[in-house]
């Protein structure tokens, strides 16, 4: 039933290819950290992401307008000293709206990424460790979800989630964002299963859940951290796409997606309605994915095409 061949995963615990000239052995954490520090991509990403988060938190303070304020004297104005990003045709301040939308999109992204990684870790570890019918069933579900584009499932499920609050969207996005990483974790767990320390634990009578929690998951944690980081950008992309077409965040709430949807009709004539939120969105996702990519290179410098 498997759609693809098992993805061979380099063993992150195995020897590090770099020779470190130091009297003391360097811990793996310090090694990854030092590799990260020398990656310019990491710095670009982390500074970008930090700026965006700080801006989302404090950005409204210097602005004279709130997201719900209507400036009836300046409707449809282009960017001015009064309205930094211009106003919409009913006088909403686009700068304030962008920040409120960004907050929502960031919260969704920052929660969905780690949540999906946790699901991927647990499901992948159970499939790889328990094996047998559990494994078959889980792989089957994963393959099925890889064949059905998840965007279509989101749209199909949207009537249910529209009636709930936007928090439900977080669980929906996380619930369909774990498949690819779960396959990787599963392959990794299968090789861990035969390692001596896990065998020892098993023969000492430690129960399955404890082995998965104490021995398997910590050994795949670097993969999960990478997945959580890369998942942030992916989740923001899914959320904005859904919201853009009206299937995600609903009216009283604002996200970058709904903002872009309302700016879309005027995109050619009054580009500030569209271009500013779009630029912020691309910058946010770009920063998150640069951090994730640098992290992946740092954890496993030999990592190649077989990831993600």
């Amino acid at each position: 039933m498997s759609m693809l061949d098992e993805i061979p995963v380099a063993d992150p615990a195995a020897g590090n290819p770099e020779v470190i000239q130091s009297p003391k052995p360097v811990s793996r954490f310090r090694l990854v950290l030092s590799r990260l520090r020398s990656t310019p991509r990491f710095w670009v990403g982390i500074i970008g992401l930090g700026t965006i988060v700080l801006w989302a938190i404090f950005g409204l303070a210097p602005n004279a307008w709130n997201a719900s304020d209507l400036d009836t004297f300046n409707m449809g104005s282009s960017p001015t000293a009064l309205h930094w990003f211009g106003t919409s045709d009913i006088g909403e301040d686009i700068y304030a709206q962008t920040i409120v939308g960004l907050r929502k999109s960031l919260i969704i992204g920052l929660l969905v990424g780690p949540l999906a990684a946790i699901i991927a870790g647990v499901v992948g570890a159970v499939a790889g460790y328990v094996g047998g019918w559990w494994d078959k069933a889980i792989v089957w579900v994963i393959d099925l979800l890889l064949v059905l584009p998840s965007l279509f499932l989101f749209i199909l499920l949207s009537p249910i989630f529209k009636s709930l609050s936007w928090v439900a969207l977080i669980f929906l996005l996380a619930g369909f964002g774990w498949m690819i990483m779960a396959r990787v974790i599963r392959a990794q767990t299968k090789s861990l299963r035969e390692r001596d320390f896990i065998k020892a634990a098993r023969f000492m009578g430690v129960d399955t859940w404890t082995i998965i929690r104490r021995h398997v998951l910590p050994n795949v944690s670097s993969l999960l951290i990478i997945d959580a980081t890369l998942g942030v950008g992916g989740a923001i992309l899914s959320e904005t796409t859904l919201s853009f077409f009206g299937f995600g965040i609903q009216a009283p709430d604002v996200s970058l997606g709904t903002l872009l949807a309302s700016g879309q009709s005027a995109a050619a004539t009054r580009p500030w309605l569209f271009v500013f939120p779009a630029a912020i969105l691309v910058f946010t996702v770009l920063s998150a994915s640069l951090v994730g990519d640098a992290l992946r290179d740092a954890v496993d410098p030999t990592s190649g095409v077989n990831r993600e």
Partner: protein
Amino acid sequence: MIGFIVKRFINYAILSAIATLSAYLLASTILNPAGRYLGRNPRPSDETINSILTGLGVNPHTPVIERLWTWVVNLVTHGSLGDTIHNTTVVSEMTARAGTSLRLLILGTIIAAIVGVAIGVWGAVRQYKFSDQAISYASFTILATPSFVLGILLMILATLLNNVLGVQLINFTGEYTAGLDGGWWVQFWDRAAHLLLPTISLALMGAAGYSRYQRSAMLDVLSADYIRTARSKGRTRGSALVRHGVRVALIPMSTYFAYSFATVLAGAAVTELVFSWHGMGEMLVNAITQSDINAFTGAVLFNAVLILIAGTLSDVVYAALDPRVRV
């Protein structure tokens, strides 16, 4: 080799069939086809609604397994996918729309694959040089852009270009100009002009993804001993790279291609919606908003068949590139 491909094909076929059936079940439980009639004024009687729904084969009073069975039997015996809520057959709706989507998908995917592979190889060969860095950051930026934003940005650019030139050089709304008179040739050019921006949009997204993967696959290969051997035999650098490097680096790419095709389909659906094309993507989204179970399943079946074809093709490429499979 034939055995390998047949095996993979059967694997994909089963997967596609199960995906379609699950889509039918899921749509039947979530969508409420009666809701469309209940909101009408004057409200049709319950018997009328019931008979309409039974006629479509989507009556919620019939057990869902029974409806699924009827649907499957109809498909196998008559080749029919049922009727849409607008009383046209799903098959006729699909034949009207499939060409639109396929034109975009085939062109977009082929251009994306060629450009992506070429850029990826170039980036790997020139690793850490300026061109590599520029390509890397450009593809990261495109990957960070949702497809609807990319489409609309292209439209803004095209509008600016049209304004500067003073003529309507690039058309981008819809699939063709409505009411355009002229011969076959005029029609052809009109459609080609409309195809330009959506294809660029789709190809950019695809090429950005492929180039990242091709670059890392190529980097893995470049450090391999057999490249050095080929060079020491007296092959030129270019020949060694192409004959021994690119060919090997394409093997994992063929797998990734099958993997990513579902994403391409979703991206194409979004692109269609943005450029207001009446293709399969639009049909799928409309089917969900109008609670049309039969049309939804038809659209999912279309996607599943495309994934089946793409998966099998990528296995054929895989077998052609990797001699170990053929043994």
